[in-house]
């Protein structure tokens, strides 16, 4: 299976790119909320990335990644026409989607891309989707146009006020919740502190809140427990039980700590990579 990159778009040069990949078997099965695990080189690490969009007819999937360390940097070296060595999926439980009314989908940073697929799923199910997206500044805002194409409301916040509300997504979320007591669900995807803040924001409103956890993964099929998270006092494996869970139940503090498990080695890897790649 070639896993050829059919299209690459540098969304934020040097930081975030989007790849459309020829992967008909995965595309045929992928649902919102699913992810893939990939490897770029034969000495490389397996890393999970969310499926941000699917075109089953064309047999393609879309992924969007933030260059954070060695594996994402290696991925960034690939170009249109190149193949991804190993690509495995669709993994994880798909998002639970049913017709329920108004759904607010909150996305932060690269998480907006992951949220996009879920928002689309809710839209297809006939829900009124409100997208609330945030970034540090206007140039760093992802998927604004894609979301505008189908969401009746797209609310934006930027840290510097260059676009939309100046401040945090959670402030926009809170305002929106205050103005409307018919919201059926809030979905939040982004950095861990943002998801924790989303859950905190929705709590007083008592609205169902779903977050997608990006814990460290190895196999992605439930055989290692690297991805374990505590939800409602119970240990869950994010790769097979999730990655989506009830935001009110997640132990975000533990997740944040566990994400740092390999920080020293990750920086060794990345520093060596940067040295050898100038």
């Amino acid at each position, binding site marked *: *299976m070639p896993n050829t990159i059919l299209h690459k778009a540098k969304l934020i040069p040097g930081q975030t790119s989007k790849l459309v990949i020829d992967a008909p078997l995965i595309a045929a099965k992928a649902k919102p909320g699913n992810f893939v695990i990939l490897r770029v080189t034969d000495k490389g*690490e397996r890393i999970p990335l969310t499926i941000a969009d699917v075109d089953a007819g064309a047999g393609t999937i879309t992924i969007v990644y933030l260059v954070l360390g060695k594996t994402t940097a290696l991925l960034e070296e690939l170009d249109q026409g190149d193949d991804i060595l*190993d690509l*495995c*999926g*669709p993994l994880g439980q798909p998002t639970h989607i049913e017709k329920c009314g108004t759904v607010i989908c909150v996305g932060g940073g690269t998480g907006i891309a992951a949220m996009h697929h879920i928002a689309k799923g809710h839209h297809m199910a006939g829900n009124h989707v409100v997208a609330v997206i945030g970034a540090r500044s206007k140039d760093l805002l992802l998927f604004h146009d894609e979301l505008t194409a189908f969401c009746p409301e797209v609310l934006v916040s930027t840290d510097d006020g260059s676009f939309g509300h100046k401040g945090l997504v959670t402030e926009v979320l809170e305002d929106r919740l205050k103005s409307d007591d018919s919201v059926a669900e809030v979905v939040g995807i982004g950095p861990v502190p943002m998801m924790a803040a989303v859950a905190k924001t929705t709590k007083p409103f008592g609205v169902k809140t779903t977050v997608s956890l990006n814990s460290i993964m190895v196999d992605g099929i*439930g055989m290692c427990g690297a991805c374990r998270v505590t939800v409602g006092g119970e240990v869950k494996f994010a790769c097979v039980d999730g990655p989506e869970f009830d935001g009110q139940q997640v132990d975000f503090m533990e997740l944040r700590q566990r994400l740092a498990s*390999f920080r020293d080695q990750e920086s060794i890897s990345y520093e060596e990579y940067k040295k050898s790649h100038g």
Partner: protein
Amino acid sequence: MAEKKKKIIPKRIPMPNQSPGDRIRNFGEVALGYGREQAFAEAERCLQCKDPKCVAGCPVEVPIKDFIAKLQDQDIEGAYEVIKTTNSLPAVCGRVCPQEVQCEGQCIMGKKHQPVAIGRLERFVADEYMALSACDQITGKPECPLIDPDNKVACIGSGPSSLTCAGYLSSRGIKVSVFEALHEPGGVLVYGIPEFRLPKAIVRAEVEALKEQEVDIEVNMVGGKTIEVQDLFDQGYKAVFIGVGAGLPRFLGNEGENLIGVFSANEYLTRINLGRGYAFPEYDTPPFPGRNVAVIGGGNVAMDAARTALRLGADTVSIVYRRSQDEMPARKEELEHAIEEGVRLRCLCGPLAFIGDENGKLTGMRLQKMELGDPDDSGRCSPVCIEGAEEEIACDLAIMAVGTGPNRVMLEATPELGLNKWGYIVVNEETGETSIPNVFAGGDIVTGSATVISAMGAGRRAAKEIANRLLGTSD
């Protein structure tokens, strides 16, 4: 020669090993294997019993007496042919089978002396053959059966059960595709058992041999996700063999179990074996560096984790086991090797809680002391807590090797599969068929975590039935 053999019983020829001092600094194989002289001398020890007991101890009934007879005649090729009649992975089995409770456990020589080193001889024969890459001469490529592309079977998972099933079917002209979720085939042989006990090159050679028989090995294919059982039948596969193993790691539910530094043995070993973490940073997957390591459990998995941690430079490695050394289920040789290498045994205690610092990092473990009570269902003395007897030890890496459960993905996607109360697939004992017609299963996903050889036996049993159905034979 034959007359001499009856009078003096020579001692069992010891296995040449890397010295403990050397081997804890590398991931090279510990047991170096017999040379020719050693193998022939050891073969001479076999009495060639009229009614050999050893064969009954072998789950796949290798004609042990016959292959050793060939070795006594110094006919290695002949010995290899004999072994291969029932065992498709002798280089693997010679290394990892628990011979002391199987063939060698039954050997009549073992009653008064030491049993014949059957496993070592099996390994010798297989390795000689690999080294000479003589497999082709034996299987005779030109005589390989013509593969019928329309008579096709799918195997899900690529552990020893699936590989054996694939080998049996393809040697009978049936087209086999193996679908593996990970990026490398071999199952536990690749992700679990370390290089120093089973070099990956051996598994690769076995997989290459299957490819020669036109078996397609498709990696990154998750049964139940990328491809489902019904898809396979829709694509014209006539039977499906499920050999997805039992890799779901168990934890004990102790406080602090999610601290940084508490790992399942599967994660710890997968990083190092499948991810080649021992060669980090040349390879990207990081191993977890532990200075003071506690491994909880007493089986092969625990030994592998403990010995791996030593090789990665740990200062101290202790095995924490709730019964005594005698009850440990690990292969005897592994336990001996571990002790020689400096692994400490901390028997008769179990974890109560893991203790961490403010960053969520493991710093120690609280242990409950135990004593031996009456034998339990397993026939081994059961561990009984000594009320109030607790102890605290310091550790920065704790590895849980306390058992595994069924791999879930395939089962959850196929709810029609009948499961037993532990969640393993129920099969017809004789055919290996599941509750779904023409869907077979075998190995750890049926029995729970067992052995390589029993998984192979199950793969072979299902393959026989599949071949009979597809070819109209009655083997």
